[in-house]
């Protein structure tokens, strides 16, 4: 039975688990009861406001997650664009995906804005980084080949995550994921650059190595928003 209880969110268990177990000890659950418990756990997961009084979920998380869908759409359009041959080499023309990329970046910026607004005034570095990321993200999506913009954006997002972690808005594991998502592929690219058989001229491979994990930022920020912000203390 304890396994079924673990289907419920932790905050729900903190509030109801003890009396729930007491109830089940008085009335051993039938198969129908077990199915009802599973259904109740799904309901508790889908209705975060029932999980407990400690956090307020932010529905902007859904739009940030939708941004991930747009990002995937942009990647698919770019990967299937017409092949070009010019002085820069051979590559696929990806302009068709830029609109989707811009929309995805705007949705991520909206999500980051929600986080920045919850950062305490003392977290000035994270707040300034937040505004930089909110602007740099959409600009980078229009000019994705300007890598310094991308570095500025990614570093800014990492600083927001650190600030949110220090302010107890996001847990350490979420902060770690947001930091590792760009750092790991960037490190991988740096290592690959020294391998004699690898060439950085393979633009699609570079894009895949860097952008696939970076796309996880949309998921991480979206889930962070849906996880909610600490409820302000009653005055």
């Amino acid at each position: 039975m304890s396994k079924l209880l673990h289907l419920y969110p932790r905050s729900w268990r903190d509030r109801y688990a003890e009396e729930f177990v007491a109830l089940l000890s008085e009335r051993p659950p039938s198969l129908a009861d077990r199915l009802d418990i599973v259904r109740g756990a799904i309901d508790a997961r889908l209705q975060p406001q029932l999980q407990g009084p400690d956090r307020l979920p932010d529905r902007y998380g859904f739009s940030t997650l939708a941004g991930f869908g747009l990002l995937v759409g942009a990647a698919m359009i770019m990967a299937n664009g017409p092949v070009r041959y010019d002085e820069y080499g051979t590559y696929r023309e990806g302009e068709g995906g830029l609109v989707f990329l811009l929309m995805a970046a705007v949705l991520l910026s909206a999500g980051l804005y929600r986080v920045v607004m919850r950062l305490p005034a003392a977290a000035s570095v994270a707040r300034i980084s937040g505004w930089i990321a909110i602007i740099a993200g959409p600009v980078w999506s229009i000019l994705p080949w300007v890598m310094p913009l991308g570095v500025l954006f990614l570093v800014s997002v990492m600083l927001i995550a650190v600030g949110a972690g220090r302010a107890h808005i996001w847990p350490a594991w979420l902060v770690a994921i947001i930091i590792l998502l760009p750092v790991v592929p960037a490190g991988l690219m740096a290592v690959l650059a020294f391998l004699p058989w690898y060439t950085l001229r393979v633009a699609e491979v570079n894009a895949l190595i860097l952008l696939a994990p970076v796309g996880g930022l949309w998921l991480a920020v979206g889930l962070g928003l849906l996880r909610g912000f600490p409820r302000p203390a009653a005055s």
Partner: protein
Amino acid sequence: MFLEAHAGRNTIVAVPNLGSRARRPIVEQSTMTEPLHELGRFAEPSLHILVSLSDGPKHGYAIMADVEAISGSPMGPGTLYGALARLERRGLIEALEPEQRRRPYQLTALGVTALEGQLEQLSSFARTGLSRLRGRTT
């Protein structure tokens, strides 16, 4: 727009001025009963729980047994706690201090008002249906 007071209810609703033939209230339900209407599949279990608590505080197992006796159908533990969480969140019930590991719940003043409104609505609905059945020409 007209403001229309409904007899027997403490609600004033806004009515669009569409002429006398088309003049109907937009909102008919009392605001006190809204918390139950918006509970979706938990609306009926919630009403059963409120009725169960109407004669005094009860803990989870006692509510389940009482609801089964009142309604004739069992209520699963997942449904019970899904409804309890919603009712508590809306301030219709409140948890009391635990007795050993069992925590009793009781109606709040808002819960009493909401339950009264809901039962009056159901009673009116039942009366209308019965009177129409009796007046039916066969």
